[in-house]
């Protein structure tokens, strides 16, 4: 059974095919709302949506200014689920749209399904202590999701039903400047292999050693929250966990990571977990397929040697 309608709202074109394709398995009709001009919308036409509505954001404007116009488009159908990508702008859009549709937001869902006409969302709560299953009790529901939750290969059906949004942007906040970050953002959610660094790392320079190992294993580098937030040794976008990025790679190698519940909740869908930690009692070993109880400063260089 499927629900009638899903709207996808995304300020990031790269997740559209996955979201639309996943939504097609849950709903009869999928409408993608994208931020860009007609040319950009046409370029995204093979995302598997039935319809695309584009919001032509002006140079001085922002996607969030379209919140009420988007809500008006959604209200044109009697009930619908709105999936919003889990970005900072996505959260702002979700919160605003939810008020206009008078419904709550379920944030960071990691599983969506339709059972007996009910749209069921699952997500981690209490920092990874529990998984909560919820349904919406109102005609509309808003869910934010990250990439990687749908196990689907985009079918690539081309839609020709593309049009501009009817409403106009409003409530714009003056922007004084915008600096794009130069370095490409690492897409940990899509990574097949990850080196995951914890507080066992003694100094920022030692990241080099971890990066070397990552390179040999063709892996991306992620970390625990303290490494990103307290030490600021890695960007915030790199920390794994319930409040960070949730991943499901084929392989994750944790280095000096204790394995707090918040962190485990973000990595426990990995196929194989390897742990290296001095502390035999660290909870990470209960969640690992293979573990070495020992000094990462001896193990990692030796491992690099052997793999080189």
């Amino acid at each position, binding site marked *: 059974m499927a629900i009638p309608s899903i709207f996808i709202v995304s300020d990031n074109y790269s997740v559209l095919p996955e979201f639309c394709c996943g939504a097609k398995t849950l709903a009869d009709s999928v409408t993608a709302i994208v931020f860009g001009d007609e040319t950009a919308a046409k370029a995204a036409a093979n995302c598997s949506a039935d319809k695309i509505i584009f919001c032509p954001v002006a140079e001085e404007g922002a996607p969030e200014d379209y919140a009420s116009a988007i809500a008006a488009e959604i209200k044109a159908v009697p009930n619908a689920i709105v999936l919003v990508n889990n970005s*900072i*702008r996505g*959260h*702002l859009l*979700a*919160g*605003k749209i*939810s*008020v*206009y549709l*008078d*419904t*709550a*937001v379920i*944030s960071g869902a990691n599983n969506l399904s339709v059972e007996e006409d009910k749209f069921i969302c699952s997500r981690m*709560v209490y*920092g990874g*202590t*529990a*998984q*909560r*299953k*919820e*349904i*919406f*009790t109102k005609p509309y*529901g808003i869910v934010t999701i990250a990439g990687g939750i749908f196990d689907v290969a985009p079918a690539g059906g081309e839609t020709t039903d593309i049009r501009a949004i009817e409403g106009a942007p409003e409530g714009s*906040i*003056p*922007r*004084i*400047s*915008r*600096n794009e*970050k130069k370095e490409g*953002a690492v897409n940990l959610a899509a990574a097949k292999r990850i080196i995951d660094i914890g507080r066992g790392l003694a100094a920022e320079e030692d990241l080099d050693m971890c990066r070397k190992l990552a390179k040999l*294993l063709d892996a991306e580098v992620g970390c625990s929250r303290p490494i990103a*937030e307290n030490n600021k040794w890695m960007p*915030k976008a790199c920390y794994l966990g319930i409040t960070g990025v949730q991943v499901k790679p*084929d*392989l994750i190698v944790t280095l000096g990571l204790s394995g707090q*519940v918040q962190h485990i909740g973000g990595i*426990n869908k990995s196929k194989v977990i*390897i742990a*290296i930690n001095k502390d035999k009692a660290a909870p990470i*070993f*209960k*969640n*690992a*397929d*293979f573990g*070495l*109880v*020992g*000094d990462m400063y*001896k*193990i990692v260089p*030796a*491992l690099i040697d*052997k793999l080189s």
Partner: protein
Amino acid sequence: MKIIACCKIVPNEEEISILPNRELSMTGASLKISQYDLNALETGKQLASETNGTMTALSIGPAASLANSKIRKDILSRGADELSLVPDDSDECFDSLQTAKAIAGALKLMEYDVVICGAGSSDLYAQEVGIQAGTLLGIPVMNNITGIKVLSESTLLVERTLENGVEALEIPLPAVLSVSSEINIPAVPSMRDIMKAGKKPVNELTIEAKTDASTQTLEQLAPAAQDRRQEIIEGDGEEAVSALVQFLKKEGF
């Protein structure tokens, strides 16, 4: 400036126990200020000091949580001049919109220039309540603020860090801002702060924002233990490393 910092009282998630049927038991868990709201309180304190203003802390939740005198003191020791509480026992499983409506209801009774919220609550982490409350009131809202500069009595210049860049925005007041945990490192209250906290005023507000829940929880269970092989070797010598390499090879990496 008149500043309001919102803070939620939550069970310490590290002290929640898991029953044999995987349900959660909160009975042994102490209460704490939601972690990210410490950043909101710190932001409010700094902004109040910079503008010779005042900060009121606002918390909404079950009456029993709000009655906890240790928590009240904890909040007030972090720079708030007073604490406003909205006890609400109508539904302990507030969804994001219900909470936002309660906050908006309380804000209608209060005077403010800026309302500061944390990034999200450490129990449910919806990251939406501040945005929803501001939208309900029809005032500017912005999330993931990583820096604030006062331009005038009615305008702030804020830095907002996005996944792929940083923007500077001019926010007209009154407004609701959700701050990122990156914005500051919350100060640990001194003994003097704690002593002073006991003498600060606490008031209870009654609001008329009863709303229906938009969501219903079907189930809440600790994640089933993942079946992990737990092949653990003690040692960091040659043999241990070889065993790890063997394991990687066997798994096809």
